[in-house]
């Protein structure tokens, strides 16, 4: 990673930590959502950028975890923080293990198609299930609450508290990802991305590593699904739709696939531009589309590339 990017990250972290002191509630919630999306994008980048598995079905574990929280939340009462988090992440991982065991037998364009197909199956199942709220979804009236022997370390009903939880998780996931990628597992998936055939011939059971990666990415997506449902206080089938997967993929590509900070930059840029363009015109999607076309043309390796001046000159 280039030094400018490191400096940018430190500045960004300080700014993010200080923001609740000055930010209005609307922006506080907006940045919270961006940070959750950033974690979601990091989880997809583990598949796309680091293992070479382009998934168009990453909304599935995200949505499954969100719906799990909805089902675990009693009406007008809070769900347990740890229980609901563990169950949400667990079912997201389980769903990913089942889907992964099937889709990872394909590769390339077929992999994209099959992940898309599974995602849409889940979408239509939820969309057509009355008890899950059908096309309207359902509200979660009370956010999960954390209590340790009667003491509440933080209260998710307070925007600033939720904000700091998201920030802490983002830092944790970012750091964890860097550790993971430098460990033997990270090197093995890098090898699989570069040349899976040779990895097999060197004695790696590549399917196992791809499946582990798929499940891990699914669990992280589950974490963000849980966060999103808790934050927004509602779940709906759109969380599982391929638009969600597609937008996420766009964030990863826009930010820079396979770069540590890329997914964070991509999520922030896309969400911020969405907000700005929405203020300008009701045809904001057109402007956003144009921006994405231009950025792909001029910074093909993503926004993270802008901070790589050392490599470009070296």
């Amino acid at each position: 990673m280039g030094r400018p990017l490191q400096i940018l990250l430190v500045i960004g972290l300080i700014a993010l930590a200080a923001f609740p002191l000055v930010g209005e509630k609307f922006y506080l919630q907006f940045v919270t959502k961006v940070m959750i999306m950033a974690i979601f994008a990091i989880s997809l980048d583990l598949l796309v950028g680091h293992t070479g598995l382009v998934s168009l079905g990453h909304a599935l574990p995200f949505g499954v975890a969100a719906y799990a929280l909805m089902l675990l939340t009693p009406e007008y009462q809070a769900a347990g923080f740890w229980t609901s988090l563990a169950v949400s992440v667990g079912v997201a991982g389980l769903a990913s293990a089942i889907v992964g065991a099937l889709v990872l037998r394909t590769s390339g364009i077929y992999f994209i198609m099959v992940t898309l197909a599974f995602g849409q199956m889940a979408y239509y199942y939820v969309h057509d299930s009355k008890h899950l709220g059908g096309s309207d979804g359902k509200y979660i009236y009370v956010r999960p609450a954390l209590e340790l022997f009667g003491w509440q370390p933080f209260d998710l009903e307070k925007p600033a508290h939720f904000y700091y939880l998201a920030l802490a998780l983002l830092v944790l996931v970012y750091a964890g990802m860097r550790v993971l990628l430098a460990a033997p597992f990270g090197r093995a998936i890098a090898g699989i991305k570069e040349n899976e055939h040779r990895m097999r011939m060197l004695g790696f059971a590549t399917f196992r590593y791809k499946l582990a990666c798929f499940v891990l990415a699914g669990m992280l997506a589950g974490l963000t699904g849980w966060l999103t449902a808790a934050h927004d206080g509602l779940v709906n089938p759109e969380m599982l739709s391929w638009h969600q997967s597609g937008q996420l993929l766009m964030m990863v590509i826009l930010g820079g696939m396979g770069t540590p900070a890329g997914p964070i930059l991509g999520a922030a840029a896309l969400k911020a531009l969405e907000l700005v363009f929405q203020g300008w015109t009701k045809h904001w999607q057109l402007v956003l589309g144009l921006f994405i076309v231009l950025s792909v043309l001029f910074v093909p390796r993503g926004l993270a590339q802008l901070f790589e001046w050392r490599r470009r000159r070296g």
Partner: protein
Amino acid sequence: MAEPLLRTEGLRRQFGGLAAVKSVSLECHLGRVHAVIGPNGAGKTTLINLLSGELAPSAGTIEILGRDAAGLAAHQISQLGVGRSFQRTNIFMSFTAFENCRLAAQSRLPSSMRFVRPALAYRQVNDAALRALEACELLERKDVAAAALSHGERRQLEVAMTLATEPKILLLDEPLAGMGAEESARMVELLRKLAPGHAMLLVEHDMDAVFALADTLTVMVDGSVLASGTPAEVRANDEVQTAYLGAADD
């Protein structure tokens, strides 16, 4: 003679109506080089693909270190102690030469499901990679990206990666392919150094190299073994003379 490390019996591989390999039986012994020669399309690479698990045999047996290995997956065969190099260079182009070998050596950890400790902190893996690079005279080029290496150096790296997995059996598919005279001589020297510690199956077109290295020579034509024996015996074989060696003016 001691038990062979690798033995096949009646090995056959059929692609639809075409039998690329028909009933091949051969043995590889520790410290000996078994060269397989034959014209293009004789089934030499298919044979290596069968032995390395990339293809499953249609019939016949493969025994590796006394274990039945027919039908095992490629990664399982590799873990039995079989290293394979490729005719067409098959390396990790964007990684450094060291990382190519380090990753190869990492395959010998009981598992790579290790998520926390940095890969570079595994001393025995690094050392195995460095030994392989040194054996192939690439130590000075270890920090160069594979894509920036010369053709000859990439061929050396191909063999170095195979060595980094510390195999007992080496399956080398035309290690001299596309090499200049000087590079070829270096590679022959390297293979000669490796021979004592390994059972080596060498597929090669370069006849000078083959006769310089081989203890046993098998001639394949049309998927079948035409002759097998010491180089001198094979050279004297009339059938081989007419079918292959005699016709070879190159």
